[in-house]
């Protein structure tokens, strides 16, 4: 037995839901000052386990020991009093309030805004997380918003900090910065539970790891002693699948052309697009890197036709389509997989048959204004089969599918429309490793049949895996697309922070960074 009791110890935690056992007999322990990774795919039960620790979910069986004493945490407020802080993957900040107001909202104790602001500044400086307490949240970059969440936890002097996939929204440079902060915290004795499925991050940061699959612990490891392949085996039960990018041998003609697309924004928290030009050729995948909120949503809406604009700004196979709506552009051979699957790419309460109809209806699913449901059903069935969509059949409603399976269905549906151009936003967001590899390979194979594919993603690794050329969207400006071989994660990461020279303003190198909300922390 250890002389110093672990900060947190879980013994045989089990949590059952009606249809699934989310956690089965989970045991782990975290020492003071230890950075402990929880590694697992989506659906492995990581989030449930963290919610149990944080008191948001009650375990059916098992015990939890805190500093060697048995505790029963029944709600998050109690968890916070014990010294457990959690930074969620999705931020819970009010955009119209400023930093200190947002922090004040969650404090359990009475506060004085001015004094709190001083504490915020103090804590944020101490941990290298510079924050202006009076900046409104809507003007902050995603990385800065995450800092608010972290500082909010740190103000309560946590002794265990839980971070749920914290790097999915950060540039490579910001990730390094975050790691420094976490190491500093650990050196001061704070225990850290770090949830991720990114193997190299866990190897770089964590002292130990608990690997989960299907609700069970499948391994305990010292990440630095393992290889990515051995960790992946524990995580997904087999080798990490590799994508292969065959050479395209067909004709290289421009299919999707974006010409000097500029667009003001109506949304007060939106990003205006400035003079975006890009050409995607048949048989290639062009990736657009960048952090959401830098014009991604606006660019996608302008390309998909959800927000039509100037006629000549977007062309498909030489034909101007910039003024057409989404349905009309689809008739020109454009398909689109949006970032939001539920509510945009699919109607949550409708079955897959009806969701096949959403964009598949021109494929002979109508006659005399009536729907031929048998055909829609057959289409859905084929999509489920071809793209290995795990679901209860074509009558399962869209929201009953897991994120990854719904994504496979939507990507499959769009591919079955035999497009000339495919635009995909965040193709593998929240999708497990196996399904993500399948989706990437599907996109690669599709592109080699002569389809022009544009992928917008926050995941740099993914873009480097599948793209032929990579451009960066930052502060509403698009950098020139560079061949993958001619660039690397470092330089893309720098450009994600807005530090690139737009081609039309080659003589004014400072112009891009001046308009960027990212610039402050990139240079920090």
């Amino acid at each position: 037995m250890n002389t110093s009791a672990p900060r947190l110890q879980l013994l045989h935690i089990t949590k059952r839901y009606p249809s699934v056992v989310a956690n089965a007999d989970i045991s782990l322990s975290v020492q003071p000052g230890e950075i402990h990774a929880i590694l697992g795919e989506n659906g492995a039960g990581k989030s449930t386990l963290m919610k149990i620790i944080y008191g948001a979910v009650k375990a059916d069986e098992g015990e939890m020991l805190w500093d060697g004493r048995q505790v029963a945490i029944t709600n998050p407020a109690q968890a916070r009093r014990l010294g457990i802080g959690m930074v969620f993957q999705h931020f819970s900040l009010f955009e119209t309030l400023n930093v200190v107001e947002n922090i004040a909202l969650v404090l359990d104790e009475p506060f004085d805004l001015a004094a709190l602001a001083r504490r915020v500044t103090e804590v944020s400086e101490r941990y290298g997380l510079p924050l202006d307490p009076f900046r409104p949240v809507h003007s902050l970059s995603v990385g800065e918003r995450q800092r608010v969440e972290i500082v909010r936890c740190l103000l309560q002097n946590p002794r265990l900090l839980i971070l749920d996939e914290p790097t999915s929204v950060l540039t490579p440079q910001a990730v390094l910065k975050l790691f420094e902060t976490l190491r500093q915290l650990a050196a001061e004795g704070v225990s850290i539970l770090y949830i991720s499925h990114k193997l190299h991050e866990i190897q770089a940061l964590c002292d130990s790891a608990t690997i989960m699959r299907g609700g069970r612990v499948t391994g305990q490891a010292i990440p630095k002693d393992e290889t990515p392949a051995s960790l992946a085996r524990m995580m997904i039960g087999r080798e990490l699948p590799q994508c292969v990018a065959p050479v395209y041998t067909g004709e290289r003609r421009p299919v999707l052309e974006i010409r000097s697309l500029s667009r003001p924004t109506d949304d007060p928290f939106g990003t205006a697009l400035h003079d975006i030009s890009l050409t995607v050729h048949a048989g290639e995948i062009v990736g657009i890197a960048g952090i959401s909120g830098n014009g991604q949503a606006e660019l996608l809406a302008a390309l998909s036709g959800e927000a039509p604009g100037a006629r000549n700004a977007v062309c498909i196979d030489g034909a101007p389509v910039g003024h057409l709506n989404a349905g009309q552009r689809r008739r020109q051979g454009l398909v689109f997989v949006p970032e939001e699957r539920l509510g945009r790419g699919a109607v949550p309460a409708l079955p897959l048959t009806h969701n096949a109809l959403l964009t598949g209806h021109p494929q002979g699913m109508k006659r005399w204004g009536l729907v031929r449901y048998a055909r829609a059903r057959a289409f859905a069935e084929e999509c489920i089969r071809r793209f290995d969509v795990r679901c209860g059949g074509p009558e399962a409603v869209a929201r009953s599918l897991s994120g990854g399976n719904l994504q496979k269905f939507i990507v499959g549906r769009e591919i079955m429309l035999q497009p000339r151009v495919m635009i995909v936003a965040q193709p593998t967001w929240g999708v497990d490793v196996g399904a993500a590899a399948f989706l990437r390979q599907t996109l690669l194979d599709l592109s080699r049949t002569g389809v022009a594919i544009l992928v917008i993603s926050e995941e740099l690794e993914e873009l480097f895996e599948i793209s032929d050329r990579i451009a960066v969207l930052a502060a509403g400006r698009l950098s020139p697309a560079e061949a993958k071989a001619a660039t690397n994660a470092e330089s893309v990461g720098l450009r994600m922070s807005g530090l690139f020279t737009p081609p039309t303003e080659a003589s004014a190198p400072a112009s891009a960074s001046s308009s960027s909300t990212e610039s402050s922390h990139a240079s920090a």
Partner: protein
Amino acid sequence: MHLLEPRAQPSQLMRWTAPLWAILAMLLTGSLLFWMLGKPPLESFQVFFIEPLTSSYGWSELLIKASPLILIAEGLAIGFKARIYNIGAEGQLTMGALFAGGVAVHFDGVDAAWVLPAMVAAGALGGALWGALPALLKTRFNAEETLTTLMLGYVASFILAYMVNGPWRDPEGMNFPQSIMFGDSALFRVLMEGTRLNTSIIITLFAVLGFWLFNARSFLAYRLEVGGQAPAAARYAGFSAKQTVWFSLVMSGLMAGLAGVGEVAGPVGQLNLNISPGYGFAAIIVAYLGRLHAVGIVFASLLIALIYLGGEAAQVSLQMPAAITGIFQGMLLFFLLGADAFIDNRLRRPA
């Protein structure tokens, strides 16, 4: 304090049986009301809900009252599914009646088979126009249709009042605000001797069939449903939001206009200020009570029609005030909305 929090999986069984629960709650609260007013509850129920149905005349009256409710509610349901809230069906009914009545007044004495079809067409046109106005205002100026449809209802009733007080007033009507009584060629034929049940019911029958097919199978209905449930998905698929607005409002206006024709060329037989006892508003309750389903609406209409009849009977036999009809309709809607709220959410006491 309690919180309403959304349920992960609202029960479909409860969703479809909610109208029955609402009816039950209405009956229970209704008996409490009768009891508090000093009327014996059981006997009052007999008068209110049973006696109107003990004669074939009662049944025919039930159908006469249900028919306009069905027509209007079928049209409204289309819009409600697309989240286009036309609450001005009463005004569209009035305009339909006015257009049809205009034909009848203008061609008074013309004994031709085309007069009645012309009235039906004119009535449909009038209602559709009165639905098209808010559609124009919404698509052009982004004006909220709940306000414009409701307010245009008042405009319609003032136009009607002007016409029956002025140009179309019956010269021999002792200055009452009403038109001449329509001739036989401008009236639906009575189907059953001794009742007021007429051939307009056939239009209603076909409307139910048509809307059932439309809802179950048409691509347009699918587009409307997507537009209502997930506007972003409709935009993503390229379904025009403006078309949805136009179609919903024009169609529901048209159906209300048809209901207006059925009244003036049926039981009312002229233009006056009492064409409708609030059918346009009651049809909103009908649409939701029938779960926006073409056949469900038929049953819901029969129930609301029965409340109209029962309300009349209660005034006569129990000396209850005329407001009793509205009270029962209101309770029904209230309990239905309440039931829906608890189907989608549950009550939780925060920890």
